[in-house]
């Protein structure tokens, strides 16, 4: 089977700031990959490139065998129409550091928004599905709450349910617990663990080494826009090969 995600020589710069300097990696179906590295190493940028929130300058990214953002015809690449790019994104879930819940909508409305506005599912069916998803993340009691009335951990769990509502084949997590109070981190990681156990392919940018050790199938250490080291989390965490990996881990562990 083809891998879920294939990135080949991905470069991305903002003006003269060369953020990604040739990232190549593969994520197998059902694999949970943790992306770790110091801030500014390009982890989040890479994640945003995977669902085309950012355009890459060179290289290729494909998800589920389909090139992201472009259509290849012969030797040429053609930019996708907005509608086609949106369809690609709807199959890729994204969870943000700052949750980005829609503050004017209740928890349930946040979860059903994509189903109703993107997939065209009618409201009552979407609500049935939305209630199931919120129950799955442990928030069956909070359906009618606005985000401002939820704790950070609860908000992030709603955000995960909102992404799952689109039935994604791949989930991207951009530092999902970094904005949380320490005592709320566990509840979000538990939801992610449960998700991983169902066979969801996940790429997680995180500083939670415990989560990486326990749940991840692979770990990639990035620094300065390149992949420095990749392998099994236990190997990298206990026996890092590169000096940069060693010095980073000595600071976070």
């Amino acid at each position, binding site marked *: 089977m083809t891998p879920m995600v294939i990135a080949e020589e991905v470069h991305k710069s903002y003006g003269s700031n060369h953020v990604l300097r040739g990232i190549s990696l593969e994520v197998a179906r059902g694999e949970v990959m943790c992306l770790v590295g110091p801030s500014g190493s390009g982890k989040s940028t890479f994640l945003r490139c995977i669902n085309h*929130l950012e355009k890459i300058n060179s290289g290729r990214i494909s998800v589920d065998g389909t090139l992201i953002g472009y259509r290849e015809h012969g030797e040429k690449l053609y930019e996708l129409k*907005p509608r086609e790019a949106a369809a690609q*994104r*709807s199959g*890729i879930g994204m969870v943000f550091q700052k949750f*980005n819940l*829609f503050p004017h909508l209740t928890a349930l409305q946040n979860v059903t928004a994509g189903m109703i506005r993107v997939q065209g599912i009618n409201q009552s069916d979407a609500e049935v599905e939305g209630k199931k998803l919120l129950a799955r993340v442990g928030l069956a009691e909070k359906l009618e709450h*606005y985000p*401002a009335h939820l704790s950070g951990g609860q908000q992030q769990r709603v955000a995960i349910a909102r992404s799952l509502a689109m039935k994604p084949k791949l989930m991207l997590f951009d530092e999902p617990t970094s904005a949380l109070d320490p005592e709320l981190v566990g509840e979000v990681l538990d939801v992610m663990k449960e998700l991983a156990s169902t066979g969801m392919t996940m790429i997680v940018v995180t500083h939670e080494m415990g989560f990486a050790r326990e749940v991840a199938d692979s770990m990639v250490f990035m620094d300065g826009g390149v992949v420095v080291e990749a392998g099994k989390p236990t190997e990298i965490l206990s026996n890092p090969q590169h000096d940069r990996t060693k010095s980073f881990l000595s600071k976070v562990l």
Partner: protein
Amino acid sequence: MPSTKHEPIKAVPLRHPVRWAVALFLALSTVAFIVDAAHRSAYDWSAFGKYLFDPRVTKAAGVTLALTGLSMLIAIVLGVALAIMRRSPNPIFRTVSWVFIWGFRGTPVYVQLVFWGLLSTIYHSFFIGIPDIHFHNFYLGFHQAISQNASLFWIAVLGLSLNEAAYMAEIVRAGLLSVDNGQEEAATSLGMSWWATMRYIVIPQAMRIIIPPTGNEIVSMLKTTSLVTAVPLVTDLYARTRDISAETYNPVPLLLVASAWYLFFTTLLMVVQYFVEKRFARGHTALLEANV
């Protein structure tokens, strides 16, 4: 004395003698002004009472209200469209919007109203199509003569709404800018189209910022309608009361009549605005309460 800690504090409240003195002075001055005004002959309160509900005046108040309502309705729709065009990914939309705002915000509304009043003398007909190609008087295109008698009321609505649209566009734009970028990103990553993102995510949140200045614009528009005399439309509240006073040689009571009607409408608007603002603060008021 740890036991006293839990008793409610009983302290003498801070006194505000200066506040009381100023309040008393203002209250007395107001009473003095009212008593004086009630007897001052120039105000001619009997004429005020006579003309307040004069059918000509109530009809003119209706015209002013209609001008305000229609112009604002068009201005809001057009303003939202212009603001969205300003941040569209399409450069044609962005440019058209910028030029429109530049022109209509950059010239006085009075001048614009005079201009629209003269439209029919500048352009005699309206034509879309290929000029000079016609078969037996049948033009290849759409042809419409501009009537010399085009309704002055609609010309006034046109002039007021196009000018106001430029201001509304800036208000809406500020509202759109107030919505966090993460909202657009979250909606986009769900696969929402740019338009759905605007319609269901960004605009509803921007409304909270847009409504207070829009209420202000409606109040302002209500009074700007008094400039339609430039078109020249003379059926609105101010022009009508001025015409009546020209006959009676008694301008002050009619100014008061006009003011009373303007005040009545603005007061109504303030009440409506209060309820609309409450409606669009959903989620946000929750935020404020939660942060307390």
